[in-house]
């Protein structure tokens, strides 16, 4: 600690200080060795090669050090489904162990910057005009994604155990509906929306609403594999402006409580 005073002082103000002060954890008075291993030779000689430096280890080895203590915690339950773990993103990529509190950033702007430092493409999508208010700092990436992993695709957060995390803020779309719109349940909101951002109103995947609908409701049964929803609901004349946005009439597009055609 004489040579690494800044680091030691940072640890002393962090939650890891409990390792330094609590005898039951086995590293009382030598918190550094909890992660760096035995350090006596390094301390005596100053030779950096005589101590384990996680910065030189691969992600799995770094994670192994962290998980020695942190494996059996609820945050790690989705670890196997985490693309971070699968793509060798180490715990220390997001958690700064040597700095004083917080080990993990809490403010939305700081969290978003942290995520955007790797996810450049997603950050660019948020610069499109129709987006969730992430760049403004009103939401953060963790509102929708669980960086430790989840059972949902793209590490999405869950709501009420196993429902899509989108319903945390969009409870009016949750249902259950008497008449469901199947893609909402089978493929999620992303079947029709670009959640990070879009040039299209309502963050839709197409500029014209009718094409969002007609690409599935195409009146062209595929063969030999059957797919759902190919039969159009009626013989609408697309030249009429009334039929150019299907949701003008089929306004309960996320599901209807009373009408099987999603009209009311």
């Amino acid at each position, binding site marked *: 600690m004489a040579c690494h005073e800044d680091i030691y002082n940072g640890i002393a103000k962090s939650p890891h200080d409990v390792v330094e002060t609590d005898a039951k954890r086995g590293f009382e008075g030598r918190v550094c060795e909890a992660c760096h291993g035995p350090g006596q030779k390094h301390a005596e000689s100053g030779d950096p090669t005589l101590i384990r430096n996680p910065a030189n280890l691969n992600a799995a080895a770094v994670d192994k050090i962290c998980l020695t203590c942190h*494996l*059996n915690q609820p945050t*790690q339950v989705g670890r196997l489904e985490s693309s971070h773990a699968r793509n060798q993103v180490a715990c220390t990529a997001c958690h700064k162990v040597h700095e004083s509190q917080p080990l993990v950033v809490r403010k939305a702007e700081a969290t978003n910057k942290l995520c*955007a430092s790797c996810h450049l*493409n997603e950050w660019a999508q948020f610069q499109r005009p129709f987006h969730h208010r992430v760049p403004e700092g009103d939401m953060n990436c963790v509102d929708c994604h669980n960086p430790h992993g989840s059972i949902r695709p793209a590490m999405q957060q869950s709501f009420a155990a196993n429902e899509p995390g989108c319903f945390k803020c969009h409870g009016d779309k949750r249902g259950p509906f008497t008449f469901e719109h199947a893609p909402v349940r089978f493929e999620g909101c992303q079947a029709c929306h670009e959640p990070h951002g879009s040039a299209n109103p309502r963050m839709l995947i197409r500029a*014209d609403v009718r094409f969002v609908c007609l690409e599935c409701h195409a009146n062209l049964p595929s063969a030999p594999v059957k797919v759902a*929803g190919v039969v159009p609901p009626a013989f609408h004349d697309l030249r009429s402006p009334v039929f150019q946005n299907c949701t*003008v009439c089929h306004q309960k597009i996320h599901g209807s409580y*009373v009408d099987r055609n999603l009209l009311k």
Partner: protein
Amino acid sequence: MKAILAIWVMFIWVMLPLLAQQPAAPPAPTLPAAPATTTSAPATTPAATPAAAQATPAPTAPAAAATTPAKPTAPAAAAATSDTASPVPSTEPALSGWVDLGYRWGSGVGGSLDTYRSIINLGSGPKFLGTDFTLADPKHRWFDTIQVRADTWGDEPSSSVHVEAKKSGVYDFNADYRDFAYFNFLPSYADPLLGQGIVLDEQSFDTRRKIAALSLDIRPGHWWSPYFGWDHDSSSGTGASVFVSDSNDYPVPNTLSDSTDLYRGGVRFEKSHFHVTLEEGGTSFKSDQSLYQNPGSANYGNFSSPIFGQTLDLTSLLANYGIGGSSAYSKVLLTANPTSWLDIYGQFLYSQPNSNVNYQQTDAGNLYLQSQILFYSSEQQLSSAAAEQPHTTGSLGAEIRPFKRVRIVESWLTDRLHDAGSAATTQALLLAGASVPLSSLIDSTLVSNYSQEAVDVFFEASQKLTLRGSYRYVWGDALYAFLPPQGLASSAQEQLRQNIGIGSATYHPTQKISLTGEVEGASSSGVYFRTSLYDYQKVRAQVHYQPLQSLSVSADFTLLNNQNPLAGTNYDYSSHQESLSFYWSPGGGKIFDIQGSYSRADLLSNIGFLDPGTLSPQVSRYLDNSHTATALVDLTWPHSKRFTPKLAAGGSFFISSGSMPTSYYQPEAKLWLPLSGHMTWFTEWRYYGYGEAFNLYEGFRTHLVTTGVRFTR
């Protein structure tokens, strides 16, 4: 409010006995698990000085970070300086932090005010721009620290406040509240009457959405820890909607109101070789949307053509949705490491939401029922409906380490969802002197069974190179049916079968370079929808390079090709996106630093369909080519030592061509001028410019200037 009171009462009731015990040193957990705040910081620990917070530039507007690209190398450091550190030794003031007060002027919106409100919605006037402060109790009586953060209050598109209170080993309390103005009025989106000169978005709304969350963890860091939580989401406001009658549809005003509350409680058990979390929860939901048109005026709807010489109209309407719902859910989470070479993970999740509806509708006018060639003057409808959706999810997986350099991850996931609904409807159509009763009872079923099995093998080829190979098999089936059968699509049953292979490599030759590449390919023999991923290829690559201590560069590349060649589908989709960013901070950024990013994205989608009116073959072709760039330069006045002015300038632009040519500019500049050790004056200029090539009337541009003072303690 009742729920908030209940949570607070519960909080106080639970905490009083614990606090009464006042352990001098809380019993230590067996692991340094939970990030509990230490109460035993040594007296010599350097304090986090208020100056640290003072030196951090203030976000002066809710959109302050809108265009700021990421600093690739030091994002957490930026956060660390902006978060007030804690705990503090007893010699430090108990209260530290800052508060920003200011005023915003707008130049007025040139172009479409409605589009401006739909996208930006920042207004003029006095603003409470934000605060971030920490209250520390040196004696650690009721709390160690209370941290409060708030952003942008005062008729803003979004406002928030967040409170964290904690006492090490005793409790950890979090409260979060956000208020969003949710406005949307874009005539190009839904205006069938635009050709008649009527500018109206028939799917517009002006609402506020309020989201709150409270959570209380008791005994954090101990081997067993109960916790409680409450989440709230509500929305209310007005809008425009469409009342759909049989042969016409009428744009009408509506009122919107819904709220969802989620209550949960559980307990975590954390031991050295296993962890179990048990949670029970439930939700309540209600929604009271209504559509109305006051009597006395005629609404001619979206179809003005006479039918059999008669013009249809709607002269009065009242339609009320009385929707209620609830759910209960259970959650069991498990991790274990029974041996040094095996980790086990498992989840069991079950939820059963339900809803019930009483819909009432009364309308009058000259209305027409096409199926019976019947004109009628008024209608009454009563519908009673209910739905239930049991949903079970389970997952189990293991990480096996048979050899030093090999890890095998095996995981299995299954998900079953069954939605059953039933709606009974009674209608009465009133003619001149007669009544035509109509009634129906429809049951609906939606079933989804989904499973996936995945194996990942990781091979540490060297300390610097990790290879991964994965195989995933996904299968499922879905059923959607009505009873009694009606129309052309009364039931559908599909299968999902996909074989997916993934290969990836992570190369980390030095601390300054890292490369990650992943290739994924899939072949399907069954999917649910025409546009689903079928035979697809995904590529993702990321590179981080830090050639100098002061310079770092990152690149990100993604590609997705998806083809469904089946007869009747012929779906061809391809997209790719490339991004490059840099951060240059010579001399540690003492004088200036600069960061920037550029991204290009291309998307092309072609899929055929039959025009529903003419049954002629058509192609839905969507094309989107876009360029996005962000930049930000931070300048620090070099010759001033005590009170250092700072200037930041930059912004972002987005330009696209293709199916929706759009431009969106957001330049900005900010100046911070310290006036004293505790006060900083700041001012900010922003410009927003938006344009659509196909809907010129929806473009807008505006200047906003915000100025204010930060008080720091």
